[in-house]
């Protein structure tokens, strides 16, 4: 029970309601709010201000580019006839194509410019930013990133990783690890490493680079691994360990093993408001590698009709089961299989 004042004072003004005043009780029980140390406050403010100023500058630069493009489009329309005539005698330089979009960021993730690469200094990425072919993206220690490639595949970078995006939709893994979910509709993605390349065949897979070796792990589908010495196919549930000399070792790896956790953590959040529970569960399955089972076929059909509504901040895939009790359902997870049942009435 909350402690009551031992020597209550009689009310002296209309806003004092005596001992049973719940607001007074709560306030006195809680005591004063702790203040932030001055050193912390100053540091937080300065760093956040710097970050905010960077964001504002990028927004303004993007607006200027849009205006420039709009103006150029107008000019092009006005001189179409002249341009067509000129085209017979000139070759116009292709502008870099947009190859990917930033979907989510954790920690420090940067784009390294050509000039900056040697000094490893780059520009912080922002969510929603588009990237051109040739972009070099690097995550710092503790950083994670999720990008959406033009062909529809999801690309995620693990901590301390670096990739170069290619015009054909593939990438060069220069350091660390990437996870790719090409799903069922995305174009094929090729990952090049110093030791060989991995080409997906409609799948979810990881490529990890060590000092003188690399790994290819497949969660779903297949991956063709091409080496100087030949090629290998990695199947779902396998992790291939490959040396720089081309030696290959195969090991089993569950689609829901802890080693896939970083890819889940890097995934962009999804607003499930307006989606069905079935869609939420499907998303969960793709991200966690879990299998899904229902108590009976009727329940499996029922979840297609249950709709989620409300405002969701940042729901993580592994947290979807926490929604089930609100729908009168319960679940149990064992060895990567999530079984959904009706809850007790």
């Amino acid at each position, binding site marked *: *029970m909350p402690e009551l004042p031992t020597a209550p004072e009689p009310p002296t003004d209309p806003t004092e309601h005596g001992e049973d005043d719940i607001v007074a009780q709560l306030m006195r029980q809680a005591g004063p709010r702790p203040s932030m140390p001055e050193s912390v406050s100053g540091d937080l403010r300065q760093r956040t201000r710097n970050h905010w100023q960077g964001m504002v500058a990028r927004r303004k630069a993007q607006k200027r580019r849009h205006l420039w493009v709009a103006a150029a489009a107008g000019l092009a329309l006005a001189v179409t006839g002249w341009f067509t005539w000129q085209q017979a005698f000139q070759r116009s330089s292709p502008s870099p194509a947009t190859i990917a979009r930033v979907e989510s960021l954790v920690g420090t993730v940067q784009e390294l410019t050509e000039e900056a690469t040697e000094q490893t200094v780059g520009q912080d990425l922002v969510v929603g930013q588009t990237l051109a072919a040739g972009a070099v993206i690097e995550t710092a220690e503790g950083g994670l990133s999720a990008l959406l490639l033009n062909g529809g595949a999801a690309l995620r970078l693990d901590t301390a990783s670096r990739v170069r995006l290619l015009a054909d939709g593939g990438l060069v893994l220069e350091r660390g690890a990437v996870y790719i979910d090409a799903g069922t509709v995305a174009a094929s993605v090729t990952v090049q490493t110093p030791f060989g390349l991995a080409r997906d065949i409609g799948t979810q897979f990881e490529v990890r680079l060590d000092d003188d070796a690399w790994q290819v792990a497949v969660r779903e589908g297949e991956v063709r691994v091409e080496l100087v010495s030949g090629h290998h196919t990695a199947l779902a549930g396998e992790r291939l360990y490959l040396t720089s000399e081309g030696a290959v070792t195969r090991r089993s790896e569950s689609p829901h093993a802890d080693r896939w956790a970083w890819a889940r953590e890097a995934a962009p959040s999804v607003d499930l408001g307006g989606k069905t529970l079935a869609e939420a569960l499907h998303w969960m399955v793709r991200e966690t590698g879990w299998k899904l089972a229902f108590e009976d076929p009727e329940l499996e059909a029922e979840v297609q009709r249950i709709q989620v509504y409300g405002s*969701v901040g940042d729901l993580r895939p592994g947290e979807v089961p926490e*929604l089930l009790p609100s729908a009168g359902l319960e679940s149990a997870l064992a060895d990567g299989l999530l079984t959904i049942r009706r809850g007790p009435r």
Partner: protein
Amino acid sequence: MSRESNPDTLRMRQDRRLVQRLLDGDEAAFDAFAEDHFSGLYRFALSRLGHDEGLAQEVVQDTLCTAIDRLDAFRGESTLLTWLCGICHFQIRAHFRRQKRRGQQVELDEQAPRQREVFCQGSQDGPLGNLERKEVRGMVFYVLDQLPEHYGQVLEWKYLEGLAVKDIAQRLSLGPKAAESMLTRARDAFRRVFEKSVSQLQEDGFHGLRFSTQEGNP
């Protein structure tokens, strides 16, 4: 109470304007943003991280940077502080998941799940019955940080410093009647936000989500 004078609505409107000004690069808006939100966010993180000040600072920094990057996604359906605390909540969880992956022993000090259990038990003594002092403290601080303008401050002056209404009026350069009116509004706002927080935890405790069938019956 009219919609215009409802403190919740007032706060959310203020926050929407503030966010727009931040997106526009208004320096004064940044100062207001820091002044009004950083302390509350820090307290939120501190209470959930075992009062580790260094870790709280790190998590709050990450939260603020993430929030800045996503500022144009703020819809104003909650207060800005609630939105920030939501991001902070997941930064804290991400931190503990990383620690766990590195094999480090961690102690989770997340009050929300425990409060959820407590409120769902339907305590006969009301919301305070089963709560420990630190849980009440966390809730009260969170509610005070959500209140608009000087409301939290006048409540602390009144109930912690024991100031009379006339002294509060003097501090705020207001007449006694105006100060009395502000104190009444502050109390009402506190009760409303506190009860809302309690009932949200009682219903589900998870982002206020509800389910309905396609027929639309919750």
